[in-house]
């Protein structure tokens, strides 16, 4: 059955420009969208934990809006509808990459905010109390005490989000972004051979996720607070909500 496998085509695909650029685009989009989502998600999480009801409501609406609607719809909306509503988005700067960045960041921020909220809640309230007793301001306590401890809890689910997001970038082919899957499809439809082009793109996804897993375990060790820098990562102490993404 493998007789029909064209290893030459496989290697050509693997080393071709469109694949490289496609993989790079997917990776770039994932990294910038996740980074943006972490920032937005952090503030949404603070809003959700605020003492002010208005901020809590705003955070709730944000999460509701972006989690209740399909990611694909959000991509379409940002790419096609936004320029018609708002002239700013009709300019040349508004590339498929920029549109995908915006849509995926906003979408991902809703999920990240829940992860970050869980992380912040996992930190013992006694930590904040001790900080206040020392005379630290709320911002200092957040930045110096609570966030560094929450990071440890937030890293594993964020790794999950990275992987989900990497795969979601392939959705961006609908707004004509040339990413990894586009390269595979174009090659397949021009050669009428499917196994080789698709397997080649699969190799790239595996490589990216493997690299991520390596970075993640390094980060986890970095945020485990012991002087001996244990090899084994300390068990996470708080339950983190498991968010299922498959339907996004």
């Amino acid at each position, binding site marked *: 059955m493998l007789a029909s496998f064209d290893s030459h085509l496989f290697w050509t695909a693997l080393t071709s420009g469109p694949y490289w650029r496609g993989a790079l685009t997917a990776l770039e989009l994932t990294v910038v969208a996740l980074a943006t989502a972490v920032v937005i998600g952090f503030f949404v999480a603070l809003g959700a934990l605020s003492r002010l009801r208005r901020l809590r409501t705003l955070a709730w609406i944000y999460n509701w809006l972006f989690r209740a609607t399909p990611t694909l719809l959000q991509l379409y909306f940002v790419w096609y509808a936004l320029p018609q509503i708002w002239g700013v988005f009709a300019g040349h700067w508004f590339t498929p990459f920029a549109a995908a960045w915006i849509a995926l960041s906003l979408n991902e921020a809703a999920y990240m905010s829940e992860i970050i909220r869980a992380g912040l809640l996992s930190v013992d309230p*006694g930590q904040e109390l*001790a900080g206040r*007793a020392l*005379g630290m301001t709320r911002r200092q306590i957040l930045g110096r*005490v609570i966030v560094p401890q929450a990071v440890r809890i937030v890293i594993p689910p964020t790794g999950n989000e990275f992987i989900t997001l990497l795969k979601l970038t392939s959705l961006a082919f609908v707004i004509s972004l040339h990413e990894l899957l586009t390269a595979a499809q174009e090659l397949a439809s021009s050669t009428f051979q499917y196994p080789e082009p698709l397997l080649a793109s699969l190799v790239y996804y595996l490589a990216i996720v493997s690299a991520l897993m390596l970075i993640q375990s390094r980060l986890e060790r970095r945020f485990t*607070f012991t002087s001996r820098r244990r090899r084994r990562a300390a068990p996470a102490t708080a339950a983190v909500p498991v968010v299922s993404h498959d339907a996004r």
Partner: protein
Amino acid sequence: MADVVLRAVDVHKCYGDLEVLKGVTFEVDRGQVKVIIGPSGSGKSTLLRCLAMLEAPDGGDVFLEGERLSALGEKQLAPHRSEVGMVFQRFNLFQNMTALGNVMCGLVHVRRLPKGEARQRALELLARVGLEDKASQYPDELSGGQQQRVAIARALVMRPKAMLFDEPTSALDVELVREVLDVMEALAREGTTMVVVTHELRFAQHVASSVLMMDDGRIVEEAPPKEFFSAPKEERTKRFLDLVEL
């Protein structure tokens, strides 16, 4: 007139419908050690938190060296809090910092001291509680008694006007209680102004300038330890002392 460091006047505190403090008037003079005892739920910890300005009283006033703290807003309060040291039952050391980092933290971020100087002073304080060799250890790697001594150093390094202890030995294994009490007794001998909520009645007997009995949100009785333990005036105090073994 006595040199009053901390004074609470008719302090009330409610949590929802529950009135935890029902008008507490209390003061501690410079160099005094006041020990507060009483059953759980009597408002001892809440009183301490009001004195530390971690909780705003719903009624009455708190003064630190004559300054009315209960009149200040959250922003203005932060620097004042650093003038009162607080030690918690569960130590509450910052888990993401080493012992040294914990002790330096207030100096660097609240007092804005240069790192080098803060480090120097923090190391001195760690030495004073006998933990200079643990400076680079994280709280997770220290015993409860060691953590509590670091917590005392962390509060003490700020050179507070008074030190408040909220059941500092209650979360410790029996054999670790002594090392913490030793540190506290040394502080008392050096003339540190202290308010201590504790069940360690022997500590109260030996160290306290006066002992207070709290029950149901009020101070029931206050007397020098000798009098308090040998001839308590109030029925409530007698009943409590009968239940607690010396």
